[in-house]
């Protein structure tokens, strides 16, 4: 009897602890977002989005930063998604399960945890110097693509793993080749999961600053990049630049840019959720 009571008390206590932990996280987020909004919201207007950076805080805008971010995202996606998804498909569907694949697997998981500045050094050496891309958008995109590749591969593999084997067997059993089975059955079924991985990795790429600093991206870019070979800046670098200045006006600019960056992240995640739901409706489980 007393045991039963004790169990119930533990149950209740755990529930309370859980609520407290959740609230703590939420509270921090609310404080952070509230702070940023109070600081930066009044600064956001059309001019802020369309102005070039300037030495005067009130005249500065983030045009070059957000166009740079858009360029980087598009290029990174074009490089990383085909590579990552294809590698994931190979490892999961084609690769024999032996010691070598096991090693590759462990290494990929480890790569996902390597500090991003290391990728910056790799990018500087391989793309910046060896391939002679300098501090261009393309060099940055390649570097970020390599950075998010492990995340993409792991996400793709997990999504493929979640597809029941009976689906593969059903397809093979009526004479489909491996590729037909992957293309017509497995990818559609795994698409939602792969898409989630893609968006998550792109969000990660969008927020990265360190590797871009290493490859030599500029903080002050007085023009909008027109080609992949142009030099560039991105939102996080612009933010970093502004918040490290002493004048209060620039801090306000930083807060405003953070709001824009968050907004883009939310929009991307929103699109991901929308696409995933739409996808799941098409797959008739």
């Amino acid at each position, binding site marked *: 009897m007393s045991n039963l009571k004790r169990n119930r008390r533990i149950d209740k206590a755990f529930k309370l602890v859980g609520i407290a932990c959740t609230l703590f996280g939420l509270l921090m987020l609310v404080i952070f977002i509230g702070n940023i909004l109070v600081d930066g919201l009044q600064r956001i207007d059309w001019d802020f989005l369309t102005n070039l950076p300037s030495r005067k805080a009130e005249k500065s805008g983030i045009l070059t930063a957000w166009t740079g971010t858009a360029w980087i995202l598009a290029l990174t996606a074009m490089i990383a998604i085909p590579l990552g998804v294809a590698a994931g498909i190979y490892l999961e569907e084609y690769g024999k399960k032996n010691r070598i694949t096991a090693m590759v697997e462990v290494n990929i998981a480890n790569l996902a945890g390597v500090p991003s500045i290391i990728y910056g050094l790799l990018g500087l050496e391989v793309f910046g110097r060896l391939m002679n891309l300098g501090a261009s958008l393309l060099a940055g995109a390649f570097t970020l693509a390599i950075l998010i590749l492990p995340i993409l591969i792991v996400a793709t593999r997990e999504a493929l793993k979640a597809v029941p084997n009976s689906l*593969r067997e059903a397809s093979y059993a*009526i004479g489909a080749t491996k590729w037909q089975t992957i293309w017509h059955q497995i990818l559609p079924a795994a698409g939602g999961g792969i898409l989630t991985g893609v968006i998550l990795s792109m969000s990660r790429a969008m927020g990265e600053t360190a590797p871009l600093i290493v490859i030599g991206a500029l903080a002050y870019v007085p023009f909008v990049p027109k080609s992949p070979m142009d030099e560039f800046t991105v939102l996080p670098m612009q933010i970093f630049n502004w918040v490290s200045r002493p004048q209060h006006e620039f801090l306000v600019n930083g807060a405003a840019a953070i709001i824009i960056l968050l907004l883009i992240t939310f929009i991307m995640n929103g699109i991901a959720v929308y696409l995933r739901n739409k996808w799941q409706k098409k797959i*008739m489980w």
Partner: protein
Amino acid sequence: MVLQCTFAISGRKKLCGKTEQKVMKHIEAIDVNAYYGDNHVLKNIDIAIKENTVTAFIGPSGCGKSTFLRTLNRMNDYIDVFHLEGKVLVEGNDIYKKKVNVEELRQKIGMVFQKPNPFPKTIFENVAYGLRIHGEKDKKKIEEVVEQSLVKAALWNEVKDKLKKSAFGLSGGQQQRLCIARTLAVEPSIILMDEPASALDPISTAKIEELINELKQNYTIIIVTHNMQQASRVSDRTAFFYMGELVEFGKTADIFTNPTKKQTENYISGRFG
């Protein structure tokens, strides 16, 4: 449907509907041994299965009957540690030869699984899939074959008004018949069934059995089952597997009433298994 008759032998071209010449041994295994890694799962299996008959594979769990069934359409190819010795002949051709086109083989040897596994697509697309992957583009032809296949699988009347609906809206028994229709659509001559009714209720099971009875006029059917009554109801011949060996193979009536081996008798009388 453009089906090439590459498996045809001795002037027999059944798929093309030309010269019909009886081949007695439709499937033949000669001294088949199979291994999962070091695990010897099939031991010296010799068996010959005649055309247009129903053969039941029975035996306790782990006796190798499903493994053997899967060697017949090479579904074990995807298991890395699987390894096979001996010969499996289908219409006289060794299906484990290097140059054999496995996709073509599987088109010819359909398979129905234990748990109904329709594709997450419409009922129509489930049946049409086989045609599409084999390159059929003619819409009319596809519609025709889909209808015929569903009729043959005794499902047409139940689904004709909801062909565009998801296959997952069907009951388990209907799903299983859909899987049979999907197999029939690519015009196999052999159908392998791996406990096709074990996940179904008695009425659905009866329908599947009825269907097997009808299909055997045109197809060679092999069914793995745990249900002894089912084996005796649907099959012409029965093979009893035990510990990876084919213990006894003969007419179903003989196996169930007058088995020659002690192990068979013990198993069918329910003393073990």
